[in-house]
C-alpha cells in the first residue's frame, strides 16, 4: 500500500517537473525585458546550484559552507582552457566538473569523519585557502581575474552577444538535470541509507562503511554539478575573478535556497531560489546604491525566521496543507 502511494508520488513529482519546465520554457516568449530575463537566468542557476548542494548538505546532512570552491573551479577551468588553450567551453565545463569531483573525493576522505561544526568550518577553511591561492596566482590572472572576449554568436563557443535566451535555456536545462539527478538519487539505495541515518546516530553506526561510501559519492556528484554551474556562470558574465566566483559569499548563496525552501527535499531548492533570488535582486535595484546592505538584512532575516519557525523550510507550508487535506 505504502509502496503504491510512494510510486504514485514520485510519478506525480516527475510530471509536475515536466510541466514546470515546459511552462518556464515558454516564459521568454512573453517576457522580453532583459532585466527580468537576467533575474530568471540567475534564479534557474541558483535553483540548480542549490539542488546540487542539497544532495550533500540536505540528504547526507553534511552542511558544506565551501561550495564556492567547486563553483570557482568550474568557472576557472573553463575560462583558462578557453582563453589560454582555445578549448571549447563545453569541454572546459566537463573538465572542470571532473576535476571538482576528484577533489571532492580527495577532500571527502578526511572531512566526512569530522563532526557537524568541525566539518562546516573545515569546508569554509578549504574554500578560503583556494580563494587565497587564486588571488595570488599570477598565471590565472590573480586578483584581476580573467576576461573572456565575446566576439560572435556561437553555440559551439557558448557565446551570445545580443540575446540572453540561449543562456536562459541552458540554465533551465541545468536546473532540470540537477533536479532529475536528485529525483533519481532519492529512490536509490543511497537515498534509502541517507534517510535511515538522518537524525539517527545508531543507524549511522551500524551502516558505517556503506554510508561513508555513499557520502563520498554524494560529495562527488554535488561537486560535479556545482562546477557545471560555475562554468556556465563564467560564460554568462564573461568575466571572472576570485572575489566573484570563489569568495565565501558564494558558498552561502549556493546553500541558502535549499535552507529556505526545505533542506533535504526534492522541491525545496527550487522553491527557495524562486523566492530568494528575485527578492534579493529586486531589493538591490529598488533601494539602489544608497541602501547597501538592505538585501543582506532581508535575506538574513528570512534565514533566521525560517530556521527558527520552519526548520523544514517554506516547503513545510505546502506539505502541511497536503497532510490536512489527506486527513479530511
Amino acid at each position: 500500500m505504502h509502496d503504491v502511494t510512494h510510486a504514485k508520488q514520485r510519478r506525480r513529482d516527475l510530471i509536475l517537473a515536466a510541466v514546470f519546465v515546459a511552462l518556464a520554457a515558454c516564459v521568454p516568449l512573453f517576457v522580453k525585458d532583459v532585466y527580468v530575463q537576467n533575474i530568471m537566468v540567475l534564479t534557474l542557476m541558483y535553483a540548480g546550484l542549490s539542488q546540487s548542494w542539497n544532495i550533500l548538505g540536505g540528504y547526507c546532512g553534511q552542511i558544506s559552507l565551501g561550495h564556492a570552491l567547486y563553483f570557482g573551479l568550474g568557472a576557472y577551468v573553463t575560462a583558462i582552457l578557453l582563453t589560454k588553450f582555445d578549448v571549447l567551453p563545453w569541454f572546459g565545463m566537463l573538465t572542470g566538473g571532473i576535476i571538482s569531483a576528484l577533489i571532492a573525493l580527495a577532500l571527502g576522505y578526511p572531512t566526512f569523519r569530522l563532526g557537524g561544526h568541525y566539518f562546516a568550518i573545515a569546508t569554509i577553511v578549504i574554500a578560503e585557502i583556494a580563494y587565497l591561492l587564486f588571488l595570488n596566482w599570477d598565471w590565472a590572472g590573480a586578483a584581476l581575474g580573467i576576461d573572456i572576449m565575446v566576439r560572435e554568436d556561437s553555440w559551439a563557443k557558448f557565446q551570445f552577444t545580443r540575446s540572453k535566451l540561449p543562456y536562459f535555456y541552458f540554465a533551465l536545462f541545468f536546473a532540470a538535470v540537477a533536479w532529475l539527478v536528485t529525483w533519481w538519487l532519492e529512490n536509490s539505495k543511497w537515498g534509502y541509507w541517507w534517510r535511515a541515518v538522518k537524525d539517527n546516530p545508531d543507524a549511522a553506526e551500524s551502516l558505517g562503511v556503506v554510508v561513508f561510501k555513499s557520502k563520498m559519492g554524494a560529495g562527488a556528484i554535488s561537486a560535479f554539478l556545482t562546477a557545471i554551474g560555475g562554468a556556465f556562470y563564467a560564460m554568462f558574465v564573461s568575466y571572472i575573478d576570485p572575489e566573484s566566483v570563489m569568495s565565501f559569499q558564494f558558498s552561502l548563496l549556493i546553500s541558502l535556497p535549499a535552507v529556505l525552501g526545505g533542506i533535504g527535499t526534492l522541491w525545496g531548492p527550487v522553491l527557495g531560489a524562486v523566492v530568494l533570488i528575485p527578492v534579493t535582486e529586486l531589493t538591490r535595484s529598488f533601494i539602489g546604491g544608497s541602501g547597501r546592505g538592505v538585501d543582506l538584512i532581508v535575506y538574513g532575516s528570512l534565514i533566521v525566521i525560517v530556521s527558527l519557525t520552519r526548520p523544514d523550510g517554506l516547503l513545510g507550508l505546502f506539505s502541511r496543507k497536503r497532510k490536512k487535506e489527506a486527513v479530511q
Partner: protein
Amino acid sequence: MTAETIIQSLASGLLMGLLYGLIAVGLSLIFGLMNIVNFAHGEFLMLAMYGAFFLFAFFAIDPLLSMPLVAAGMFVFGAAIYLLIVRFAMRAKTNVGMVQIFATFGLAIVLRGLAQYFFTPDYRSISHSWLGGKTISVGGIFLPVPQLVGAGLAIAAFGALYFFIKRTDFGRALEATREDAGAVALVGIDQNRVFALGWGLGSALVGLAGAIMATFFYIYPDVGASFALIAYVVVALGGFGSVFGAFAGGILVGLVEASTALVMPPSLKAVGIYAVYLLVVFIRPRGLFGSI
C-alpha cells in the same frame, strides 16, 4: 632573514596571538556550555569595534576608558541574542544541525547588513587615541603599544575568567551546567538563566577584544569575517569548550601566522593558520586540549 627579523615577527605574533585568544574565548565558553557554535561571533566583534569607535567619535572617550562600557553593552546584547534567538534554535526537533548553524549565520548576515546600512561600508579608524601608533623598543625589538596593552589585557582577562569560574557561585553553576545540564536543573539552578549569562559573559569578552582592536585596526562591516574564522581555528586547536585551550590555541595561531608571513607573501599568511586547523582536526578531531 636575520635572527632579529625572526624574533621581531615572533614577538608580534605572540602579542597578536594573545588577542586572538581573547577574541576566541567567548566562542569557546558558549560552545562548552551548550554545544552551539555562534556563527555570528565575528559580527559581535565588529559591533564592539564600532561601539568603541562611536564612543570616541561622539563623546571623545578613549577606547581604553570606554572598554568597560563596550563590554557591558556587549554583555546585554549577547544575553538578549540568547533569549531572542538561540533559545528557540535549541528547541528544533528536525534538521537540528542545520537550524543551529543557520540561525546564527542568518543573524551574522543581518548584523552585517545593518552595519552597512547605518554605518556605511566605509573604512573607519580611531585617530589619536592614547595608544594608537605608538611603539616601544625592548632590546632592539619594536613592539606596537596597542598590541602590547591588548596582550596584557588578554592575560588579565584570562586570569579573571579562571578565578571567576573556579571561585564564584555563577562560575560554578556555569561549570556544573556544562558537565550535566539535567542534574543541574534538579538542584534548582535555572538552566535558561545560566545560558543567558554565559552568552552575556562570552560576548562581553569579545567586547573587550573589540575595544582594544579598534585602536589599531580598520573598522568596517565585514571586519568580523576573517577574525571569526581565526577564532574558530583557535577554538578547534584548543578544543571546543576549554578556556585554557583558547589561551594556548590563540598563542599558537599567532605564532603560526607570524612564521607563515616570514616564508610566504603576507597576503597568504592566513593559509598557514587554515592549514594548521585542517592538520589538527584530521589528526585529533577533539582539538589539542579538548575533552569532548
